[in-house]
C-alpha cells in the first residue's frame, strides 16, 4: 500500500516539476523580447570610416556594456538625433567584473554586447581573448592615421590590428601645489617649473631642496606608488613577445629611478587610494600628483574641494605618459556590426559626438581632425581652468604633453605586472634597504607565480 501511495506522490511531484518548467519557459519567452539587430544594406550604400551614407537607413539594436550610465544617458539621445532607427541598450557593468561577465557570456553562448569596453586594468587581457573585430576591415574601414599617433598601441592587439577606439585620451602630467612651489622654489609658473624639472636627476635634486627647505614637511610624491606609475608608463618599451616577458627591459630603469628617489627621502609613505593618500591633497604635504584629463574633476577637486586656485599642471620630467584610459571595440560575432560601429564612431570619433562629449563630460577624443576644426573650443577656458589658477588645461595637455608621448603596446601580462607591483611596493616602502637587483628578482619570482605560462627575463 505504501508503494502505491508513494507512486502517487512521485507522479504528483513529476507533474509539478513539468508544470514549473513549462511556466519558466513561458516567462522566458516573454522577457527575452530583445529583437535581434538587423542592419539592411541601405540601397547598396557602403558605410565608410567617417559615417554611413544615410544615417536614417541604418537600423537595429546595439547592446552596450558600460559602467558610465550618465555618459550613455546623455550620448544616446544625441546619437538618436542622427540615427533615429538604431536602438542602443545599455547594461551597467562594473569594470571589476567586466571581463568575468564577458567571458562567461561568450563561453555559455548567451548574451554578449555588441560594443565592448576595455578599461586599462584588463585591456590587454581583453585584446588577447580575440573577441574584438579588426576595425580597419569592412564594414568599419577605420583609418588609423586619423587618430593621435601615440594612441595606436593602446588600441591595437598583439598582431598589430586596430581593434578599438579610445573612449577619451588620457595623457598625463603632474598636478602640483602652486602655493608650495612658489614658497619653496620661488615660482609657480608651469613653463619655468618644466625647465627646472626637465629630467629625473633635476627632479630628485629639486626634491631634496624642497625637503631641506621645508624641514621635511613637504615631499615630492605621496608614495612609491605614484612615482612608479609615472616611471613605468614612461617606459613604453614592448616587453612581451608571445609568452616571453622581458621584465628587465620594462622595469629595471623605473625601479632604479624609483629607488634613487626613495633613498633621497623625497617620497612619502602613503599607498595609492588609501584614506591618508586622499586626504594629503588638501593638507599640502606633497608637491605632485600624477594627473590625466579626468583628474581635475574626480581626483584633485574631489579631495581638495577648497583648493581652487592653488593647483597647477606641469609635464613630467623627460616625457609624457598615459594614465588610465578605456578602449571601445566591437564584438566579432555581433549581429549588428554596422549599427554598433555607427554608435562607436558617433560617440567617440565624430565631430558632433566629440563636441558633446567634451562640453558635457570633459572627455577629449583621439580624433586629430577634431582639434584642428575646433581650435577655438580649446582656446576658451575649460570647466576646471579656474581651479588650476587660470591655466588652460586642455591646451597644456595638447601642446606640451601629447607631442612627445609614445604608446605602450598592450599585453595580457600588463595586469599581472600591475598586481605584482601593488603587492610589492608597500614592502619596498617599509624596508628601504631593498636593492634594485633584489627588488627586480623578487618581482620576477612573484610574476612567475602569477603567470606560470610565461618565460621571464
Amino acid at each position, binding site marked *: 500500500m*505504501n508503494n502505491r*501511495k*508513494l507512486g*502517487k*506522490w512521485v507522479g*504528483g*511531484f513529476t507533474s509539478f516539476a513539468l508544470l*514549473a*518548467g513549462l511556466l*519558466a*519557459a513561458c*516567462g*522566458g*519567452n516573454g*522577457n*527575452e523580447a*530583445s529583437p535581434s539587430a538587423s542592419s539592411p544594406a541601405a540601397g547598396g550604400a557602403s558605410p565608410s570610416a567617417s559615417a554611413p551614407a544615410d544615417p536614417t537607413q541604418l537600423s537595429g539594436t546595439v*547592446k552596450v*556594456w558600460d*559602467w*558610465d*550610465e*550618465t*555618459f550613455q544617458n546623455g550620448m544616446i539621445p544625441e546619437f538618436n538625433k542622427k540615427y533615429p532607427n538604431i536602438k542602443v*541598450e*545599455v*547594461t*551597467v*557593468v*562594473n*569594470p*571589476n*567584473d567586466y571581463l*568575468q*561577465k564577458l567571458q*562567461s*557570456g561568450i*563561453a*555559455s*553562448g*548567451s*548574451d554578449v*554586447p555588441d560594443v565592448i569596453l576595455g578599461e586599462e586594468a584588463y585591456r590587454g587581457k581583453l585584446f588577447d581573448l580575440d573577441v574584438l573585430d579588426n576595425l580597419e576591415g569592412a564594414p568599419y574601414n577605420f583609418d588609423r592615421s586619423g587618430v593621435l599617433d601615440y594612441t595606436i598601441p593602446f588600441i591595437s592587439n598583439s598582431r598589430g590590428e586596430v581593434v578599438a577606439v579610445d573612449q577619451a585620451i588620457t595623457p598625463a602630467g603632474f598636478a602640483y601645489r602652486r602655493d608650495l612651489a612658489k614658497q619653496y622654489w620661488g615660482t609657480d609658473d608651469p613653463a619655468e617649473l618644466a625647465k627646472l624639472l626637465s629630467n629625473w636627476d633635476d627632479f630628485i635634486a629639486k626634491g631634496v631642496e624642497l625637503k631641506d627647505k621645508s624641514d621635511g614637511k613637504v615631499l615630492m610624491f605621496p608614495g612609491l606608488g605614484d612615482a612608479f606609475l609615472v616611471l613605468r608608463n614612461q617606459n613604453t618599451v614592448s616587453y612581451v613577445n608571445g609568452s616571453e616577458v622581458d621584465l628587465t627591459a620594462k622595469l629595471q630603469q623605473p625601479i632604479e629611478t624609483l629607488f634613487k628617489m626613495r633613498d633621497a627621502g623625497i617620497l612619502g609613505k602613503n599607498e595609492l587610494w*588609501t*584614506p*591618508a593618500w*586622499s*586626504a594629503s591633497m588638501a593638507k599640502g604635504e606633497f608637491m605632485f600628483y600624477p594627473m590625466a584629463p*579626468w583628474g581635475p*574633476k*574626480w*581626483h584633485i577637486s*574631489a*579631495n581638495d*574641494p577648497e583648493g581652487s586656485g592653488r593647483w597647477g599642471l606641469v609635464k613630467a620630467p623627460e616625457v609624457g605618459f598615459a594614465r588610465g584610459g578605456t578602449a571601445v571595440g566591437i564584438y566579432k560575432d555581433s549581429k549588428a556590426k554596422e549599427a554598433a560601429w555607427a554608435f562607436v564612431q558617433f560617440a567617440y570619433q565624430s565631430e558632433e559626438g566629440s563636441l558633446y562629449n567634451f562640453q558635457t563630460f570633459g572627455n577629449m577624443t583621439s580624433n586629430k581632425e577634431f582639434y584642428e576644426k575646433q581650435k577655438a573650443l580649446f582656446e576658451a577656458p575649460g570647466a576646471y581652468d579656474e581651479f588650476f589658477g587660470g591655466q588652460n588645461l586642455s591646451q597644456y595637455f595638447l601642446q606640451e604633453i601629447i607631442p612627445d608621448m609614445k604608446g605602450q603596446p598592450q599585453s595580457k601580462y600588463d595586469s599581472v605586472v600591475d598586481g605584482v607591483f601593488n603587492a610589492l611596493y608597500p614592502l619596498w616602502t617599509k624596508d628601504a634597504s631593498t636593492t634594485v637587483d633584489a627588488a627586480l628578482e623578487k618581482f620576477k619570482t612573484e610574476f612567475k607565480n602569477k603567470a606560470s605560462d610565461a618565460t621571464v627575463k
Partner: protein
Amino acid sequence: MKALMWICLVVISLLSLFPFYIMTVMGTHYNEDLFKGIPILPGSYLQENLKTVLKADFLHVYGNSLIVSVASVVLATLTSTLIGYAVAKFEFKGRKWLQTFVILTMMVPTQVGLIGYIIEMRHLGVGNTLWPVILIWAAFPFGAFFMIQFMRDSIPNDLLECARIDGCSEPGIFVRIVLPIMKPGLATLATLVFLWSWNNYLLPLVTINKSEWYTLPIFISNLGIVHRTDYAARMAALTMTTIPVLILFILGSKTFMKGLTAGAVKG
C-alpha cells in the same frame, strides 16, 4: 563572576554591532570625507546619498531582489522538505545512493557548474531573466541534506505509523503531521536561503545582462563607479538592504536557534 560575564557580553555585542553602526553612519557622510578618518557621529549628507541611490532605480531593484528571495525560499524549502521526507522516512531502492548523491553534489563548488548552468538556462529559454537566479534553488543539496537529518532526528516513525493506521492519506500526513513538527527546521532553512539568495553576487552577475533585472548586490556594486567610487552612497544602499534581513532574523531568531541546535542533545 556575573559582572565579568556581563562585561564580556557587552564587549562582544559592541564589537559585532560596531560595523553595522559604522555602515549606517558612513551612509550619512559625503564620500570624500570618509577618507579623513572613521566617522563616529552621523553626518548631514544622508539626503544626497539617498538621492543618488534612489535616482538609480533602487526600488525597482529592491523589488527584483524580494521576488528572487521569496521565490527562492518557497522553491528551496519545498524541494528540500520533500527530498528530506522521502529519504529519511521511506524505504525505496536507491535511497542510500540518493543520499550519497546529495552529499556529493554539496562538495562541488557552484563556480564549477556555472557555465553549464548558464547553457542549461539558455536552452530552457530563460537566459537574461530572473529565472536562473531562482531556479538554482530547486536543486539545493545543502537544504536536502539538512532536511534529511532534521526529519530523521525530529519525526518519530511511530507517529507516522499511527497516522497511517488512523487512515490519513500520505499527502495528509506530510501536510498535517510532518510540516508542523518541521517548523523550526523550515524557519532555519528559509532564513538561510533568504539570506544567501539576497546576498548572491556571482550568479546574477553572470546570468543577468539587463539592468532592469539586476538584484541588490549587483546594483550596489554598480553605484557610483565612474572614476571615483561613491562608498557613501553604497553604504546608504547597504543599510537599506540589510534592514529586511535583520528584521527577518530578529523575528525568526527563536525558531532559528532551535533549528540550528536541533538534534544537538539527542543520542
